[in-house]
């Protein structure tokens, strides 16, 4: 007998095997409920994260703008004082 023929014969017999039955409809229902809840709690979390990112971007933008207009306090010391007429 050819090896492949033997394997096919073995497979024919293997197909008749009784497979286990778990009865898991209730478990599937519970798991679906749990995963649905998880996805619901993730929506506000994602929304909060998105809003935080937008707020952080605005603050960063403003900070850069302020930085450009800000004078250095050391430069203030060495800069010549404007002439003031004392009398």
């Amino acid at each position, binding site marked *: 007998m050819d090896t492949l023929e033997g394997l096919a014969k073995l*497979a024919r017999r293997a197909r008749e095997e009784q497979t286990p039955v778990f009865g*898991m409809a209730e478990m599937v229902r519970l798991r679906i409920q749990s995963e649905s809840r998880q996805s619901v709690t993730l929506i506000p979390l994602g929304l909060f994260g998105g809003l935080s990112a937008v707020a952080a971007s605005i603050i960063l933008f403003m900070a850069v703008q302020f930085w450009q207009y800000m004078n250095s306090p050391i430069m203030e010391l060495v800069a010549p004082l404007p002439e003031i007429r004392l009398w």
Partner: protein
Amino acid sequence: MENADWLDVTASVRGDEDAYERLVRRYEKQITSLLWRFTRDPVQCEELVQQVFVEAYFSLKTYRGDAPLLHWLRRIATRTGYRFWRKKAREPQEMPLPDFEIMEQIEAAEEEERIDPSEAAAVLHALLARLTAPDRLVLTLLYFERCGTQEIAERMGWSRAKVKTQALRARRKIKEIAEREHLLERLGWTL
């Protein structure tokens, strides 16, 4: 598509959990039977079956009803089983052939019909486990599920040419493995 299936599918999409429970009860046996080919560990098999039905529930909106629901579920189950194998392939494992006692029981059988189907399945499973995931998948579906190359291609989203090449290569490899293990001699099928 069966009317009862379609009614339960539409009800499930609307959120009727009882309808989905009916679908699970209706097809649980067939899906378990398919996933039993991917793992012979009852705990792992149960986990995989649950994964399939949970994934199917969340994808139910995409089911158009062109093919019977069971075909659609089998496609999800096959891909779930394949993912499981690929994940397991990353972990080192060595699955030996069933021990000598079991082989002796098979050897004692004079005719094919006298071989215990569970033992035959265990031997075949252990042999197929020595192949890579794609080779193993093609041969598992060919041997255990009696799928044609077209059906395997549809289930996996592969081309038919790829399945044919894979099957040819996988058959050559399994033949080598079986001969190395002296399978036919141990089964008493050499004559």
